[in-house]
């Protein structure tokens, strides 16, 4: 049984068909790429998978459980974790608090614990702190745990977002342009982290990316999305040489 199954996912905003008949099947440990020019509908696919947008047609099945009708936080708690294209940070919170917040769904101390404290809350908060610190160590941010997130450089904020998404214990991790606006050095760090996450946690990862070199190096299979439709799917090598992809995507970059 596949981990994630997306069948004929389509969404229409008024007269605009943003995504049409998108299909995807992923097994545990898969690492996939989704490429396409700006406005192709990549992030829209992510938003439908996480329940932020409701598709007009089609369904998303996670371990045979349909996400239809569930709130984003419920879907996230079931195991679809994500990062955002433009960083979505809580600017008055520290790095550690960010990662701890993603453990929200595992809190069992309830309002009584929140109001009056107690042993259970103390235990759970310590557990969450430990888990968060482990994840921060993974992305090499443990020494900045008590910093406000706004004080971090951009690349570190991106890494923090990955740690935060991992804290939700996802079965599948959706990374929305994890390398946007990064310098080569930061790029290598992100690549290393993604490899580590993939290798160590055997986590399924779906990656939206603009840097083709980065996707080609990481992903086993790649889909190319243009104007809401998948025009090509296959191994990195196939995609690289696919005439339509070159026309729609790479061609533009050469021109640019």
């Amino acid at each position, binding site marked *: 049984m596949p981990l994630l199954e997306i069948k004929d996912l389509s969404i229409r905003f008024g007269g605009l068909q943003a995504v049409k008949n998108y299909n995807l099947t992923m097994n545990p440990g898969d690492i996939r790429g989704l490429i396409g020019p700006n406005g192709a509908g990549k992030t829209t696919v992510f938003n439908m998978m996480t329940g932020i947008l409701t598709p007009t047609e089609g369904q998303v099945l996670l371990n045979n459980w349909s996400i239809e009708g569930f709130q984003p*936080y419920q879907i996230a708690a079931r195991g679809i974790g994500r990062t955002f294209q433009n960083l979505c940070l809580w600017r*008055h919170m520290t790095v550690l608090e960010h990662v701890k917040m993603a453990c929200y769904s595992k809190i069992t*101390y309830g309002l009584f614990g929140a109001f009056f404290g107690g042993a259970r809350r103390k235990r759970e908060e310590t557990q969450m702190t430990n888990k968060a610190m482990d994840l921060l160590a993974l992305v090499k941010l443990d020494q900045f745990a008590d910093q406000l997130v706004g004080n971090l450089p951009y690349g570190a904020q991106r890494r923090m977002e990955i740690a935060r998404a991992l804290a939700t214990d996802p079965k599948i991790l959706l990374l929305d342009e994890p390398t946007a606006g990064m310098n080569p050095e930061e790029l290598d760090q992100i690549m290393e982290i993604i490899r580590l996450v993939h290798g160590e946690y055997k986590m399924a990862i779906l990656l939206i990316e603009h840097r083709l070199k980065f996707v080609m190096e990481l992903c086993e299979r790649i889909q190319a999305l243009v104007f809401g439709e998948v025009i090509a799917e296959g191994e990195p090598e196939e995609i690289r040489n696919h005439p339509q992809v070159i026309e729609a995507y790479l061609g533009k970059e050469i021109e640019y």
Partner: protein
Amino acid sequence: MTNQQPEIQSNGPSKGGKGYFKAFRSYFSCVPMLGWLAGIIAAVLFERFLGDQISELLGLPKIPVLFGCMIMLKDFSLIPSALAFLVGVYFIPILLVGRALAPVFNGLAGMIYKISPMFSVVLHLALLYLALHLWADLSAYRLMTLKFTLVAVMLTLSLNVINGYMGEFSCSHPGFMALGAYAASVFTLVLFTNDRFFGEALLSPSMGVYFFPVAIILGGFAAALGALVIAIPSFRTRGDYLAIISLAFMFIVKSLIENLEVVGGPRGLGSQPNYASLPMVFGWTVLCIWVINNFVRSTLGKALNAVRDDESAADAMTVNTRRTKMVGFLFGAFWAGAAGGLFAHILRYVNPASFGLQRLAEILAMVYFGGLNSVHGSIVGAVSISLLGEALRPLELFKWIIIPLLLILVMIFRPTGLIAFKEFNVKQLVRPRN
């Protein structure tokens, strides 16, 4: 506070007032909270036993009740003697005892802290209560002002949960307060008082004081119920809607009570039993601060901040945003209701007119003056605005020019308030400073 020293050195030679202030601060930075409390108790005792003689010596008619503000504003020629009293009786003893005995109190505080931090906190609270009790004992006016200030702290903190921590703009606090005040009043009047509204007491009045906490909690729940009425329609959207709906709610509550003859209508409801003693009010305030601080420091409570700063990110990180907002709003309303219940029993009279726009402006001013998202800020804001309000009373109408002007200045120079976005760590506060 120990890291103050290098900061000054790096600034080079101190320039002007700011430098002196910093030097002053660093000189007293070694005084622990215990030392300050001891200093305050010493000053209060000093005033208690020698205050009359000193004020006579300085030519003051009597001991200045509220730090001499009243006297200074009424008769300008008495300003020097009132100031002299202030400095001689309060500042010098507090600073002297605090600074001179700092090593002793540091040692003592360290010893107590080692036994148990919790015990240390309780001891500090007991000392604080003692200081307040001794200070308020000298006049009924002081006692009244102190109680209202404590209630203001509760109100400010509860509004800060909604406007600061949750980042919504709620205007219904006077409404919640009114619900709490009337619910608690009706409870005590029906059960424990023989009065003209509800007739004979149903239970023995002597038991009443033990049931007073129940009345306060009932008031809190009445307010929370009212909050639910607002929350259901308005939490589907964000932003201005809650402000408008909550403002409407405040007026609805007010006119509802005005038209309810059972509770006295516009004439109000009086003769509440005298249950709101200083220890009672102090205890409720401490409980309120403790519970709210507990809540906002837990991950469950910090979800409020996450929802405020970026709701979709919170949603994607498994935070149940709807529940979080609901809990925050009802929680804030609960404490406003509890504060209302106390308010009614301190004044021993409530009427709908006291829960109007002016009250709203006052609470909002306290929240925004003190600082959003901060327990420190709420305490500072509530205490300073309510004391200032009392102190400037002789100025009558000009009071309402000076306080808003102050607020405007704070908004210009510190847009989020005096002490915003700071965690309130009580255990840190009572630690020795060395």
